[in-house]
């Protein structure tokens, strides 16, 4: 009998050992814990584009400007003085002497130049923001040619000269940036992760043999050195990301929570239960169905739903041919307008959205930018839509080829697609198929125009309409519809050069008017953010861009 008992005893022993081994919280409870919007994809500012990564980046790094914790408008951060000359194109920025990295090193002008140059030499999704700097675009394309030539078979071509770029260090703590045109929102850009500094010395051991790329191991603790209010203490895959307040941050006296944990929860329901259990103080992205149910049932004041800085829309492929080679009916603007004008947004926001999303006929969220008046957009007019379709040669939908609506299988997209399809069938007598794919595949297909009709969304990154309008310029990498309009480009370029803010916003308004009338996209509604915040958690602004500065966050017990 004793022999037999060894088995359960051994099992119990192994189980206890495994339980101990699997514990990663190290005993210390965080001062603030939150559930971010999904996995962290990449903590290298060069490769960052997802909201959850940018949120964490704001805690780990600090740019020359940073965001005010309450209003989220740009204020001086790593820089203590900033001046701009009379042409409004030459910015002089002075780094504050007490700014330090999390390992104690002083922050130098060279740290900014290193990363800004890196953004041009190894382009990421936000490299286009650097093109506001004089010479940057030219340097980037010359460097790309240089790399391509080197790979093909080592020419003796010298590397392009970085001095053509308007970014210089006057001394160890002074930067001079020369822009090609006045950019009134330049402080907002300087506060944004693509303009953060990076600590080259700690990245060097992870440099690849091509001298350009760095292995992402440098973003992993204990390797990561950053200059913001927090340092990265722990990052276990799909479990926990722990940030601890930096002892070298110049404003550390105002950092309210010492240990901040990001807790993972893959599933919307599991995330909600994690919040309910008390393991998280803030759930930043409540599952849409769940939020709608809670809202309908009422009685909970920890659910906050408010308009977001983004638009949900449908994108139409504007290329002359569809991915399978057939002629593309959507290349005809009359067809696109017909599709746009036959959509009634009401059932979508009422039955699918259910969170009070405002229906929207414009691409840029209305009433967000002061002084910007949104164009009217295309109204719901099925009669007119049918006329336009007939004009294009598809009277009553006859002869219209069978197209496919592409969407990713998360959230509400499938339901929205079904409503869209039904409305087009009812109003225009057009048949469409539905194709749902997983989000990674969806992103690829959208980006390479492997679709006819697809769902899309865009969130603004900084407080200026160009964060929306830039996307649909002809040369924009993000122009998924591959729509091209010379007048639109011209208006955008003119706005870029315009110094008077009022005139500038009017130009952008005219550009958006063209975009809406040519209908490469069909705006549906403005997003809402849904947060669940424990009443004791203070300092989380209900910001349209869903951002926050962690230094002001505190749980009052």
């Amino acid at each position: 009998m004793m022999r037999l008992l060894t088995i359960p005893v051994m099992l119990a022993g192994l189980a206890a050992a495994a339980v101990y081994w699997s514990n990663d919280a190290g005993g210390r409870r965080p001062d603030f814990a939150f559930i971010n919007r999904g996995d962290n994809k990449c903590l290298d500012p060069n490769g960052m584009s997802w909201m959850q990564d940018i949120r964490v980046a704001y805690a780990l790094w600090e740019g020359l400007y940073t965001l005010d914790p309450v209003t989220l408008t740009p204020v001086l951060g790593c820089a203590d003085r900033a001046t701009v000359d009379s042409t409004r194109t030459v910015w002089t920025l002075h780094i504050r002497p007490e700014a330090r990295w999390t390992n104690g090193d002083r922050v130098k002008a060279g740290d900014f130049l290193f990363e800004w140059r890196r953004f041009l030499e190894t382009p990421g999704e936000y490299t286009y923001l650097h093109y506001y700097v004089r010479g940057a675009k030219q340097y980037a394309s010359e460097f790309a040619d240089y790399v391509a030539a080197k790979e093909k078979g080592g020419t003796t071509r010298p590397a392009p000269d970085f001095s053509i770029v308007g970014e210089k260090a006057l001394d160890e703590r002074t930067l001079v940036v020369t822009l090609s045109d006045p950019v009134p929102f330049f402080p907002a850009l300087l506060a944004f992760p693509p303009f953060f500094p990076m600590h080259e010395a700690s990245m060097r051991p992870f440099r690849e043999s091509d001298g350009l790329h760095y292995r992402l191991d440098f973003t992993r603790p204990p390797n990561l050195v950053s200059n913001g209010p927090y340092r990265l203490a722990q990052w276990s895959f799909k479990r926990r990301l722990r940030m601890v307040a930096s002892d070298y941050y110049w404003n550390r006296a105002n950092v309210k929570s010492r240990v901040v944990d990001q807790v993972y929860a893959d599933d919307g329901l599991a995330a909600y239960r994690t919040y309910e259990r008390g393991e998280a103080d803030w759930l930043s992205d409540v599952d849409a169905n769940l939020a709608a149910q809670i809202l309908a049932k009422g009685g909970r004041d920890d659910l906050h739903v408010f308009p977001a800085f983004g638009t949900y829309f449908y994108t139409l492929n504007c290329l002359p041919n569809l991915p399978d080679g057939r002629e593309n009916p959507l290349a005809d603007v009359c067809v696109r307008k017909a599709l746009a004008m036959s959509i009634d947004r009401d059932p979508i926001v009422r039955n699918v959205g259910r969170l009070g999303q405002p229906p929207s006929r414009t691409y840029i969220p209305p009433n967000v930018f002061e002084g910007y008046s949104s164009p009217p957009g295309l109204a719901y007019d099925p009669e007119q839509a049918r006329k336009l379709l007939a004009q294009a040669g598809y009277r009553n939908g006859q002869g219209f080829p069978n197209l496919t609506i592409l969407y990713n299988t998360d959230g509400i997209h499938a339901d929205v697609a079904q409503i869209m399809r039904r409305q087009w069938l009812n109003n225009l007598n057009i048949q469409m198929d539905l194709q749902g794919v997983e989000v990674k595949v969806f992103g690829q297909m959208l980006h390479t125009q492997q679709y006819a009709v697809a769902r899309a969304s865009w969130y603004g990154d900084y407080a200026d309409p160009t964060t929306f309008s830039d996307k649909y310029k002809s040369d924009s990498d993000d122009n998924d519809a591959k729509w091209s309009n010379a007048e639109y480009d011209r208006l955008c370029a003119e706005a870029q050069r315009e110094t008077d803010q009022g005139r500038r916003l009017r130009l952008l308004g005219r550009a958006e008017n063209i975009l809406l009338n040519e209908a490469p996209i069909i705006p549906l509604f403005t997003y809402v953010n849904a947060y669940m915040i424990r009443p004791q958690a203070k300092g989380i602004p209900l910001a349209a861009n869903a951002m926050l500065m962690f230094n002001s966050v505190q749980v009052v017990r």
Partner: protein
Amino acid sequence: MARFIAWRIAQLPVILAVVYLITFGLVWVAPGSPYENNDRALSEAAKNDLKLRFHAQSWEQFLTYYPWQIVRHGDFGPSLSYEGWSVNDILRSSLPVSMALGLVAVFIALIGGSAAGVTAAVRRGGLLDVLSLGMALVGVSLPAFVVAGLLIVIFSDWLHWLPGGGWGELRQIVLPALALAMMPMAYIARLTRSSMLDTLGNDYIRTARAKGLPRWTVVWKHAFRNAFLPVFTYLGPATAYAMTGSFVVETVFNIPGLGQHFVNGVKNRDQTLILGTVLVYAAFLLTLNLLVDIGYAVVDPRIEVEARQQ
């Protein structure tokens, strides 16, 4: 005995190697590779990394170099869908959790299942027998997400006795381990019951009772030891299965274990992750079966004698 063990241990790497080769062969033969320009293609950075670390510029090159990389450096390579993470990182983070959960679940299943099965066999035809058979049927038939959901609703939402998921405190292990243990427990109960019924019919049991030994001594000390063998055989693969994670239980209870990676790896066509998880599972399975084989000698003295006589 020692020779028996040594022989079995020597076989382990050979069998593991065969499993590895078959798995690689399957991945090789499977259509599509991450290097092709399709919608699941690798990013340039990932291809760069593979080129520099694995000297691989094509999928075939990668698959050739990969086994040596595993054997020589224990490096399962980069995950092809989670950029910047290596499969080793992922395993290191999730394997302990799954192992802990699995071991606790198997422990519960073993204790609960054996007790239920023995009681059912001894009180054959009685209420306990019917109850335990009924529980066994339910445990085998109900899918894991139903069991998990029920447990959460009853014990967490209504009674507030236990937390409904997460990982970090000891209390959080109870419900997921119970959910995971349902099926093996049912199986073990049935196995134990039928094996005990078999053993209880033997002559030596009748002799022991006739000698006047107390009933439960006979049952546990004499009958159960011999009836335990089939259960013990099942315990090997059951533990391996439980330890490498259950996707459903982990998702419902929000447990950062290995189970999700099996499924997500396939969903994302992350070949290195699939290979890593399959190989880990195979290694566990083989090791546990070996332990069970060695354990036979501990559990049942008749086997040791036979081995020695050989």
